[in-house]
């Protein structure tokens, strides 16, 4: 194939054995050249068939239009910290490229409603998938929040939805004496589509910050399938319960804090939250090199699965039911289970081993069955806690980072709303 120099966005003419095709050169794969035809359709042309390619004209980048943002004195200031899961993006219909947008001007351009709710500041921290987030990112975010909190009335963190609950829990623990709202916002439908839920989530989060005296970490996502209202979900209680629905986020063993409508109406559901104050924010970061394991109880377990955690700093068990794990040897088929119990005993001598449940909701009670009692005797902590495993995991890491000597005591004490004394849900 005879090739001339051309790059993405250039208008080219391709001659193949079947004829001539004209269009825009697009990012292509190894086997196929992607061409955007005049009609707007992309097609892949087998590279084997191409005889020659002629450059017709080079790509000219269209002028960008920026919205002017003028600050309004009577409005609160919200700082938006971006971590990824692009909440705002623009599509270039010439090249099909999707560009993430982060500056306040760009955000106002995309969501003009925001300019009537608050003055917007923003900063790009990372642009990453949330499944890639590590403890180090929690600390980076906490430091940015501390910085931004000095001249903001509230913080919005844009975040991929997969681990938004984990980050909310981590920030809940790290940000001690938090005096402003920190709201995490995600989108289940990407912002490059006209039907994105990003806009409503962002608008409701902004409305909540602008109109409430809430000063905790929370998650703001759709309440139902409609673009009308969002729920403010407690930072240590939020779980992604549906892989794709807009309203896939639920408060576990707890209730939402409030319902927020796009027009700014707030209906409080649970008002026992920390209010805005003059407290001095203190960062209690998570040690970034900690190794915390997490093992889910399942049928046919082997002690080998547990042994890998010998070199770890802590282990969370996601047990069955009230907090159980296969440790009973009742017949010849369950011989392995005695080994399991011994391995747990060996682990608890070195590291904290905490129990949570894989049941979707409910509390740990390791007194009801002998299994639970044996586990307690073996040194497993976490009895009577109603923390969801995600929060329990983060809390274990945070305690080991900041209260190493009191892990056993504090793990089952309520510090950030992660444990409730009464079971109501």
């Amino acid at each position, binding site marked *: 194939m005879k090739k001339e120099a051309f790059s993405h966005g250039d208008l080219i003419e391709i001659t193949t054995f*079947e004829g001539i095709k004209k269009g825009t050169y697009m990012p292509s794969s190894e086997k196929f050249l992607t061409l955007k035809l005049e009609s707007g359709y992309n097609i892949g042309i087998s590279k084997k068939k191409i005889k020659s390619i002629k450059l017709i004209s080079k790509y000219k980048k269209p002028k960008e*239009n920026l*919205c002017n943002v003028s600050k309004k004195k009577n409005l609160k200031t919200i700082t938006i910290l971006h971590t990824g899961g692009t909440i705002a993006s623009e*599509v270039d219909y010439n090249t099909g490229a999707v560009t993430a947008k982060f500056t306040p001007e760009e955000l106002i351009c995309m969501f003009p*409603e925001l300019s009537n709710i608050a003055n917007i500041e923003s900063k790009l921290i990372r642009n990453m998938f949330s499944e890639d987030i590590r403890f180090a990112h929690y600390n980076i975010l906490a430091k940015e929040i501390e910085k931004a909190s000095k001249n903001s009335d509230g913080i919005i963190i844009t975040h991929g939805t997969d681990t938004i609950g984990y980050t909310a829990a981590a920030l809940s623990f790290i940000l001690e004496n938090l005096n402003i709202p920190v709201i995490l916002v995600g989108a289940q439908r990407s912002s490059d*589509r*006209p*039907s994105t839920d990003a806009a409503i989530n962002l608008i409701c989060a902004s409305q909540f910050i602008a109109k409430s005296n809430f000063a905790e970490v929370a998650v703001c996502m759709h309440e139902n*399938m409609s673009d009308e209202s969002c729920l403010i979900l407690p930072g240590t209680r939020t779980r992604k319960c549906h892989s794709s*629905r807009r309203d896939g986020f639920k408060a576990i063993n707890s209730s939402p804090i409030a319902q927020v409508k796009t027009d700014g109406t707030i209906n409080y559901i649970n008002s026992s939250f920390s209010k805005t104050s003059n407290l001095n924010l203190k960062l209690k970061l998570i040690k970034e090199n900690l190794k915390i394991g997490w093992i889910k109880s399942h049928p046919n377990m082997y002690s080998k699965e547990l042994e890998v955690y010998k070199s770890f700093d802590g282990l969370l068990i996601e047990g069955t039911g009230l907090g159980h794990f296969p440790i009973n040897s009742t017949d010849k088929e369950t011989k392995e289970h005695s080994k399991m119990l011994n391995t747990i005993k060996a682990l608890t001598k070195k590291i904290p081993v905490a129990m949570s449940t894989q049941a979707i909701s409910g509390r740990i009670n390791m007194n009801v069955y002998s299994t639970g009692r044996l586990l307690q005797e073996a040194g497993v902590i976490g009895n009577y806690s109603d923390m969801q495993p995600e929060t329990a995991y983060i809390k274990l890491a945070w305690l080991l980072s900041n209260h190493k000597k009191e892990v056993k005591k504090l793990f089952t004490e309520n510090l950030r709303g992660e444990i409730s004394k009464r079971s109501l849900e």
Partner: protein
Amino acid sequence: MNYKNIGFKCGLEVHQQLETHNLFCNCPSLVRDPNNPNIKFNRKLRASAGETGTIDLAAAFETKKGKKIFYEACSTSSCLVECDDEPPHKLNEDAIDTAIMIAMLLNAKIVDQIHVMRKVVVDGSNTTGFQRTMLIATDGYIETSKGKVSIPTICLEEESAQKLNSTDYSITYRLDRLGVPLIEVATGPDIKDPEHAKETASLLGMILRSTNRVKRGIGTIRQDVNLSIKTHPRVEVKGFQELRYMPRVIENEVQRQQKEKSGKPHVRKANPDGTTSFLRPMPGSARMYPETDHPPFEITPNQIKLVKIPELITEKALKLEKKYNLQPSLAKELLENKQFDFLVKRYTKLEPFTIAQILIETPKEIESRLKINASKLKEQDFEFVIKNLNENKIQKSAVINILSKLAENKKVNLADYEVISDTKLEQEVKKIVEANKGASLNAIMGEVMKKLQSKVDGKKAMELIKKFI
């Protein structure tokens, strides 16, 4: 009118729904779900920034506020994919096969690698704010009586949601139709005159139906006509109810264009009276970008080979005509009949022509002559009469009588139609002739038929009367 001289330029766009499940999920491709909607929600759609070039904030705000869009759906025909609460599933392979089949029937070249695109539509007719569409084949053509008509593109796309109602502030859609696979065939501007447009449209319709994989009935196929003359820019005419009115609508539209001095490109609606009326301005060029939720996919030569090219309906009809010596119109109608082949094979004493007539002509006669609704006749009703005719238990003349009774759900007693023996018939006729001495031939015949009804063959009876008079 000399259409060449006025610079007549005309092309068609045909949209045909496919008979399969939805394009990007496993919901049945129901166009009208009879159930009551049990899913209701409302949404707002936002055009992506940058496309309007708006800098004025207030203006941007107003345009983006838009109408509130209400949706209703039945869980029998729509799932989270139609609600845009789940990414698209695997692309419907049946629909791809059908698209390839159609592309081959239209002599088109199938694209090496297909890219699913998002065509931005923010009126709410797609919950996503875009229509998923893909270019399947290019550079096809069909032969018509007035030469080749080119088919530059064949696309496969999602059908939109059905609009229920609209106010200044809101608009309501039903989701049952959303996601039904749709083939779009576009012709080049090669149509020579209004009659040629009808011919081309009907030819395309026949080719699409030949696949046996397309939906049938009102609204399942839609034709748009693109039309311009030297002195008037392109106008798109939508909403043809019946193909036979197409030439008249085009003629009227040409005359309208000739009268209009400074016409602008726009979209018009074909009215039932043959005129057209303004619908909306011409939409800007389609804004398309890749559907990132579905990877591009290759169509291999092997895959193309595996697709069986169906025989065209016209070819099949011709074969049938020749094989059974049928009228062309009867053969064409028989193609739609599922029973014919089976009945011909099973009831060998009857001429295929007789079976064809009973299946196609008799119901028409029941409706036109007896004014009885024949649509309730079931396959077993037809087989019942054909079987008895084959076994010589009834006369051919009894067929219409029996079928009309069955159509009305009345009981049929075969004894009433019993074929009487020749000797008995002779006796009966003799008796009647004697009783009606002096009466005319026709009057006697009337008496014979009254008494013996459908039990006798009219020809035979007449011969006997003549013998005894």
